[in-house]
């Protein structure tokens, strides 16, 4: 029987008993490092194969730093790089000055947003410096604005320019977003960043805050932005549509400026129920699955219930569950 060695040891490949440092040494000696070559020559990943993906990732990291050895080529005479014409240099300077004087939105994200009785969304934006160097990749302060659309897709509020400093995390509750907080809104929230260099930790999240009758917060479920312009490889779906003791809610947003129809499907055993929804530009729908399909959930739930959306265009979807016994809300994107 093979000895168990993978606890408290530094082996990457336990079968060939090769440590991380030895792996790097092997990479450095190879003329054209590849996983297949090491497998054939040293037996790395050749038996149980559980380290295959890790070795490939370490090799990728190694090649990212050291590069793949260049094929041998005839050395040509050095070529002097062409001089950048003065006009081009002046244009580049003017563009860079314009960027700093008139900051441009170059990064944006969208999330579901709600203010409705005991449910209230807040926005969290976090701008953390590099934990090792304490240098901020976005040059310290990052500016952004927030846009709120209602359920019909109408822009109802736009903030002025806000900022988040280095190592700062801001959480904006509705009273910090609106001048006058509406009593009820179900819609979407857009964060638009100005002159963003890289996303770093600035991927925005919202929090679904659920308060009890006394106004105390019972649960805080984070949820983050979702892609809405790219083609996703499959379909939005949820296999936990009717878990026992829980009601599943759909938060569906069309983040695009076009309108389209989407078919919502619910499979229960062999039966598939279908409901067609029309989405106008920036429109949002927040409804429970039983309500959408006009049915009651059996008390014991239906573990085989499976929900999915068929649509030509992307519907940004979050699923939220109200757990009745513990009286909390939690959620997940599709």
């Amino acid at each position, binding site marked *: 029987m093979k000895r168990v060695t993978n606890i408290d040891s530094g082996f990457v490949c336990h079968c060939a008993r090769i440590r991380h440092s030895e792996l790097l040494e092997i990479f450095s000696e190879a003329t054209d490092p590849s996983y297949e070559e090491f497998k054939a020559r040293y037996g790395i990943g050749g038996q149980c194969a559980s380290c295959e993906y890790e070795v*490939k990732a370490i090799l990728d990291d190694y090649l990212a730093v050291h590069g793949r050895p260049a094929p041998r080529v005839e050395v040509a005479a050095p070529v002097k790089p062409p001089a950048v014409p003065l006009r081009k240099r002046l244009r580049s300077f003017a563009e860079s000055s314009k960027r700093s004087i008139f900051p441009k939105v170059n990064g944006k994200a969208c999330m579901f947003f709600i203010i409705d009785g005991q449910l209230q969304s807040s926005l969290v934006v976090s701008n953390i410096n590099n*934990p090792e160097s304490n240098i901020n990749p976005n040059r310290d302060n990052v500016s952004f604005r927030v846009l709120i659309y209602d359920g019909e897709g109408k822009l109802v509020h736009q903030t002025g320019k806000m900022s988040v400093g280095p190592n700062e995390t801001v959480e904006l509750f509705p009273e910090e977003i609106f001048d006058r907080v509406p009593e009820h809104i179900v819609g979407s929230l857009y964060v638009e960043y100005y002159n963003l260099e890289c996303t770093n930790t600035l991927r925005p999240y919202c929090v679904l805050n659920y308060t009890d009758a006394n106004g105390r917060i019972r*649960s805080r479920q984070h949820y983050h932005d979702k892609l809405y312009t790219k083609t996703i490889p499959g379909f939005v779906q949820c296999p936990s549509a009717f878990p026992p003791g829980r009601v599943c809610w759909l938060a569906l947003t069309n983040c695009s400026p076009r309108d389209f129809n989407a078919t919502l499907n619910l499979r229960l055993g062999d039966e598939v129920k279908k409901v067609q929804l029309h989405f106008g530009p920036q429109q949002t729908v927040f409804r429970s699955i039983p309500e959408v399909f006009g049915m009651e959930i059996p008390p014991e739930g239906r573990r085989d219930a499976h929900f999915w959306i068929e649509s030509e265009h992307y519907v940004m979807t979050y699923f939220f569950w109200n757990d009745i016994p513990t009286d909390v809300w939690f959620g997940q994107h599709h």
Partner: protein
Amino acid sequence: MNPNEKAAREWVPTSFFLAASDDYRTEITFSPRQYARNETAKYVSEICIYDPGTGRPCHRRRSEPIGLGDCFRTSSDELRQHLPANQSYFYCEAFNSAVDTPPPDTNIAMPSNIHYSSKSGKLQGDLGSNYIFGAPRKAFKGDFYYDHFPLGKGVPGMRLKVFLMNPYVRPSTFQVYLTSKNQRNQIVAEGTVAGKNVIDVEGDLPEFTKAGDGVAVVVAGELKLNPIYGLIQKNTGIMCGLDHGHPFLMQRLSH
């Protein structure tokens, strides 16, 4: 495709933790249609559960080939009888793939859905399984790998609970810290996660008010760990939030 020919891309597994006890229940589901559109292919899901004591596989559950619109389900109720007793959390991998069909694009991982529930309410949430490899993004890596979760202002009466999964065979040291405008890298927990294992750590949160500063949680790991962040009500122990974070992203995402 010729069986001897190597595909340009291969399917890769994703990680998650199984919670299985008299209190905890985990439902694991894989539906190919979430990540694929090829109706002619057949798909297979293989769940591999690792023994927390040895870090070696202790049980595998493999689905029959299923169609694009089908759904493979299993749960801790079914799997528990095959697992070591007196353990509540197990590191697992879901290897979901299309039979004899390589990934058509850079989406080389097809995660499973994980739905947690408990009688006591101490664990509840819904997550996708985590990318070990295959997420097409560029993240910062220094002396350690970093993961970030923007906790926000927090709430008095809540504790932070972080689940740390180590998808590699080597053990990894880690530190969990809080960073705010006025204080960075304040350690709340540190230790080691053994290979192919999961641990949970808890820490108190500073008492925040709505007017106060927000805070972010950062996990530094020797290896690229898969952290999950939970919130717990202090007085009842009920879990009232569960989500994943993100690495420090080097590229600019604009959705």
